[in-house]
């Protein structure tokens, strides 16, 4: 049954048609054969009836007179003259049921009871034929001048008729099998041809490998058949999928900018804070230009502030630039992330547990852009969830062929809608951000898993990413 279910529709339907053809052939053969059997049985019954009637006519007067010799002589002459020695054995009994004579007197001695021989004998009119019976035994009343004067028991050899019937059956079966076979083959081929567009459609769908392409116009069946409409519908569906994918790409892009936007205020604050100090240092230099020590300290202060600003700017630039470079992941990427979320943590006065324990070689097996996006989105989500003075953490570890990212926060936990977006279960509810949905999609593209649990007051989102067999190519 599984084999049948695993067969393609383009094979199953033609095979079903062929099987139906065979079934029809078998039923038709059975009907013809049963008709043939009935015809033959009627013929043999007629033969038996005529045989008995002829014997009755010939034997009647002799039986009436108990003329044993004449009965015997008539029986033997009739048996000898019967067509192809049809009569194998005949016995005639008088009214008292005692044998008068038989073609084989040793088998049916004179005066023996005919009942001893007639067990299983049938009436000529009710004769039934078995499949391979070559002889039939008949018991019929011997009627002479309208009066029953005795009984006739006769065995007829019908092997020639049975052989003829079997030969006809064989011929018929062979012919029907041949015709059925041809019809089944034609049915199979015709159905295969009719289902060819579906086969092509399936081939197109298989060839897409996750990115379906519309079927070219020249391969769409002509006319307005169901199959043509099916292909058009498929093409419309492919276009809709492409449009949806475009929309999702745009949404992801927007999300990236949204997350950057969310960072921008913190970044402004981060830039603004040192700016006051830098300006003060500049004033100090201007006021105490003659005091080398004060100038030197101010210059050092200005230098540190400017370096900090440079690092912030660099991290921001990296976040935008990485998508295009396909650079491998490194510990420095996590340093950038820590730098990027640092202002947000400071603003909310949150504490951070940071543990990047995965070896660089493990990290390098993954592209940096999606990993950074995943970690950044989860960390931003954690800062949002943890609230003022909350606690969050990031742990990155390599374990049994996987890279595991664990982001935790002390917030109240994810809402149902957020869970669905993160885990990819159910339909996306309207509203809400696309950050968690983007995490889910990126993890899926990397063949990874998302786990979510909550214990000891912490919401823990685990990401398990299998290490690819071949590391991503290094950027050119």
């Amino acid at each position, binding site marked *: 049954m599984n084999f049948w279910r695993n067969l393609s529709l383009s094979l199953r339907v033609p095979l079903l048609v062929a099987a139906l053809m065979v079934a029809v052939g078998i039923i038709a053969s059975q009907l013809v054969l049963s008709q043939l059997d009935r015809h033959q049985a009627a013929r043999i019954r007629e033969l038996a009836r005529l045989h008995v009637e002829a014997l009755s006519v010939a034997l009647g007067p002799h039986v009436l007179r108990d003329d*044993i*010799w004449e009965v015997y002589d008539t029986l033997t002459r009739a048996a000898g003259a019967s067509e192809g020695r049809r009569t194998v054995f005949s016995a005639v009994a008088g009214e008292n049921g005692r044998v008068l004579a038989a073609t084989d007197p040793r088998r049916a*001695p004179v005066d023996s009871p005919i009942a001893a021989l007639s067990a299983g004998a049938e009436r000529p009119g009710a004769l039934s034929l078995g499949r391979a019976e070559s002889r039939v035994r008949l018991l019929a009343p011997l009627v002479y001048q309208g009066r029953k004067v005795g009984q006739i028991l006769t065995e007829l050899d019908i092997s020639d008729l049975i052989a003829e019937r079997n030969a006809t059956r064989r011929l018929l079966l062979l012919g029907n099998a041949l015709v059925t076979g041809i019809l089944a083959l034609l049915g199979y081929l015709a159905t295969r041809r009719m289902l060819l567009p579906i086969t092509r459609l399936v081939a197109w769908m298989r060839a897409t490998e996750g990115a379906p392409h519309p079927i070219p116009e020249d391969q769409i069946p002509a006319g307005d058949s169901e199959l043509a409409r099916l292909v058009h519908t498929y093409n419309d569906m492919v276009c809709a999928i492409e449009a949806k994918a475009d929309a999702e790409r745009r949404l992801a892009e927007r999300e990236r900018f949204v997350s950057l936007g969310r960072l921008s205020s913190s970044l402004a604050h981060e830039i603004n804070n040192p700016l006051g100090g830098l300006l003060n240092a500049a004033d100090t230099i201007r006021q105490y230009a003659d005091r080398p020590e004060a100038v030197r300290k101010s210059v050092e202060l200005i230098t540190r502030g400017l370096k900090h600003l440079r690092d912030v700017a660099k991290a921001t630039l990296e976040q935008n630039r990485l998508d295009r470079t396909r650079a491998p992941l490194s510990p420095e990427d996590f340093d950038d992330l820590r730098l990027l979320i640092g202002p947000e943590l400071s603003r909310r006065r949150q504490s951070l547990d940071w543990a990047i324990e995965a070896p660089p070689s493990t990290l390098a097996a993954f592209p940096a852009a999606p990993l950074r996006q995943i970690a950044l989105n989860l960390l931003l989500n954690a800062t949002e969830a943890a609230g003022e003075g909350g606690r969050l953490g990031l742990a990155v570890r390599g374990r049994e062929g996987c890279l595991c990212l664990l982001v935790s926060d002390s917030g109240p936990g994810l809402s149902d809608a957020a869970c669905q977006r993160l885990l990819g279960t159910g339909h996306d509810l309207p509203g809400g951000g696309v950050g968690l949905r983007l995490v889910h999609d990126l993890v899926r593209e990397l063949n990874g898993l998302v786990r979510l649990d909550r214990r000891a007051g912490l919401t823990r989102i685990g990401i398990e990413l299998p290490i690819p067999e071949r590391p991503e190519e290094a950027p050119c």
Partner: protein
Amino acid sequence: MAAISGVSPAGAAKPFRLGLTPVFLDNDAAVIERLQVALSGALGTSVEMEQRRTYKEVTEMLLEGALDAAWLCGYPYLQHRDALSLVAVPVWNGEPLYRSYLIVGADDSAQALSDLEGGVHAFSDPDSNSGYLVTASDLAMKGLRAEEFFGRTIFTYGHRNVVRAVSSGLVRSGSVDGYVWEALARMEPALTAGTRVIARSERLGFPPVCARSDRMQEGDLARFQEAVLNFGDSADGRAALDLLQLDGMTRATPALFDGIARRMQILNNLQ
């Protein structure tokens, strides 16, 4: 029954009518045809061979004048001895004598007539010497009647039929003309192989050719007697005799049939 006539050379001459019974070699059309040809040639007139089922029928036809002559049996001849005369008697194995055989199936253990009590017995004809009288008189000598001694008796109206009935097992035993049995043993050995002779009678007068006594002096009967007695002289006659496995024909006196007459007396005494 058939009446077979030969073409008369004289055209309108009255055919000679010879009666035959199936007790004789009834199955051999070639024998009858040869006889007819031989007699026609010898008599110079057409011959009609009249066959009937029983001796009784043929005898009555002969007595009524429907036949000119008939090949009968010694028993019916003696029954009508006052009206019938002997024309000729066949010679077999050098003598105008034959025997009656009592036969049983080849695998039957019976050794004598007394062993056959209660069985089914086949006679050829109630007016046949070898096919009835001999066995019936043998039983009569013991004070027995055939229809009581045997469980059932049947008449087959043909010596060959008696052999068939015994050989096939239809009956246990039969009374048959010894000459016919011996002739069949040569011509159809498979048939007689199914039988075994357990008793042979004394030699008795061979079935004779008879005619009405009052017609014996008529010219056609005289010519017929002459032709029959000289049967072996013509090629056709010789061929017919060969087919019948007979040596020839001879004159005979009623004394030839004294043995049959004695048996008739025995049977009559019982009745």
